[in-house]
């Protein structure tokens, strides 16, 4: 962006392009630019204008903080390859460091070496993992994990699921079943679903969010791979339309590469 002091139509065009290039999407960008024009009548320098725009974006994100009560069951869902299994390793590490007893459920019984992968994470963190053979029914793995969680007085049971495209009806039905199993078999637990979203994803993220919300009513997003050059602007549209907050961000492949989401840091990064 040119740092000319005067604000003109070109300034607004450049800001609009910045938002589009950050994957904010056409619709949300138009809405933001309208609000910006309304609220910037008195503004005559670029820095102030950017601050107004940043504040408008921050307003889209729900103000509530992460709410987890115990015992908790966390169902981790999302499309293929977004970082579910890795994020579960990071989450288990974080909760264990907070003194919580964590159990992992290896309910991705479909993909090659999915259980092996989660097991390595479980060993790195030092938490128990409940697993069956490849091809087993995911619901039975989850069932056993809930049973073990109750018996071992676990504070948190985190359930890994197979990546699946939100357009596959049978796979989404399987997910709904897992969600029901959580509620049915452990009604006294706080059942929370989290959707993992890859920050490099474009407008398809909105379609993903809608379908996963319908299936498992997820409460928060884990936005991964923000250590790349993608800005993850699709999180803004999702916050605006579905009122769902981002709980955590993934900033790398290591065990400590998970941070709590900060709307201010997030928007600042878009304007770098």
């Amino acid at each position: 962006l040119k740092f000319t002091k005067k604000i003109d139509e070109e300034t607004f065009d450049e800001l609009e392009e910045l938002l589009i290039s950050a994957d904010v999407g056409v619709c949300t960008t138009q809405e933001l630019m309208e609000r910006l024009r309304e609220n910037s009548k008195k503004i005559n320098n670029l820095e102030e204008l950017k601050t107004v725009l940043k504040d408008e974006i921050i307003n889209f994100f729900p103000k509530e903080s992460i709410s987890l009560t115990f015992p908790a069951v966390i169902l981790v869902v999302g499309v293929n390859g977004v970082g579910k299994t890795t994020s579960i390793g990071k989450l288990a590490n974080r909760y264990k460091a907070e003194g919580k007893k964590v159990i992992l459920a290896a309910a991705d019984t479909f993909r090659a070496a999915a259980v092996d992968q989660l097991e390595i994470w479980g060993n790195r963190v030092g938490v128990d993992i409940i697993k069956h053979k490849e091809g087993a029914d995911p619901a039975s793995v989850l069932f056993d994990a809930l049973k073990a969680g109750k018996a071992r007085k676990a504070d948190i049971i985190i359930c890994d699921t197979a990546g699946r495209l939100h357009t596959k009806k049978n796979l989404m039905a399987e997910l709904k079943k897992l969600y029901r199993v959580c509620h049915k078999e452990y009604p006294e637990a706080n059942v929370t679903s989290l959707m993992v979203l890859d920050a490099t994803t474009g407008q398809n993220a909105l379609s993903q969010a809608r379908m996963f919300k319908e299936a498992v009513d997820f409460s928060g997003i884990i936005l991964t791979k923000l250590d790349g050059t993608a800005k993850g602007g699709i999180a803004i549209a999702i916050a605006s339309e579905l009122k769902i907050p981002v709980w955590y961000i993934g900033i790398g492949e290591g065990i400590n590469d998970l941070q709590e989401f900060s709307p201010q840091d997030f928007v600042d990064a878009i304007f770098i």
Partner: protein
Amino acid sequence: SLTNKLGDIFKKLRGKGKLSEADVKQAMREVRLALLEADVNFKVVKDLVFRITERSVGQEVMDSLTPAQQVIKIVNEELTSLMGSKESRINFSSKDITTIILVGLQGSGKTTTAGKLGRLLSKGGKRPLLVAADIYRPAAITQLQVVGEKLGLPVFTMGQQDPVNISRASLEYARKHNCDVVIIDTAGRLHIDDELMNELSEINKTVNSNEIMLVVDSMTGQDAVNVAAEFNKRLPLTGLILTKLDGDSRGGAALSVKAVTGCPIKYVGMGEKLDDLEIFYPERMASRILG
């Protein structure tokens, strides 16, 4: 749909006549919106809209078409020609082992695609060897071994040794076991990770590959150009593979990566199963992007 929106814009232009600059400008607003919503990079969209405008203004509307259909026809032609006007296959070595390296961001589908490609080539009479050069991701080697086992294809591994050494040794292994294609599965990495990008250059120099293919998730957004440009700058990419096209993403990233690298899109991943790999057809992708 775009056709309907353009239809509304042009409904004043009844019957014959040339497409006026004003009408085309308004139509291009809709085309721009459609392409951005399809995740085509905004700079690529700018160039495209410029070219389509140039071709459209002053155009005589053909007898058989409405003005809207005329513009759609031009848009489709520009998209298809940008996509690469015909299908493209693997360039096999004429005298020796063909080496293919799969590269790309984390989670884009490389390991699965390595298996799919191995299966496709073996159905075509080749004897592929899959090479486990991802020594970082937990159970990555196991993943490729499970895939190889399901397909009855050999998998070469040296455990967690230097991927450059693994790649070099895999060629000797291929020769010894009469394999004529080597498919190297590499670790997912960021285009801005100097060390890991250098690792790829080293692997490439060591095996003197015939094909280096960038595996791209078809739901990638605007960042696709940054990734593709950087990979293309550091490596002599020869092709692109677009994955997860069995979803409902419009796949505009395909246009962006093609525009920025000039590399042909050779294959598309159409599912998680190991037989879900298809040849890429430019016209099909063009109409998918247009929605």
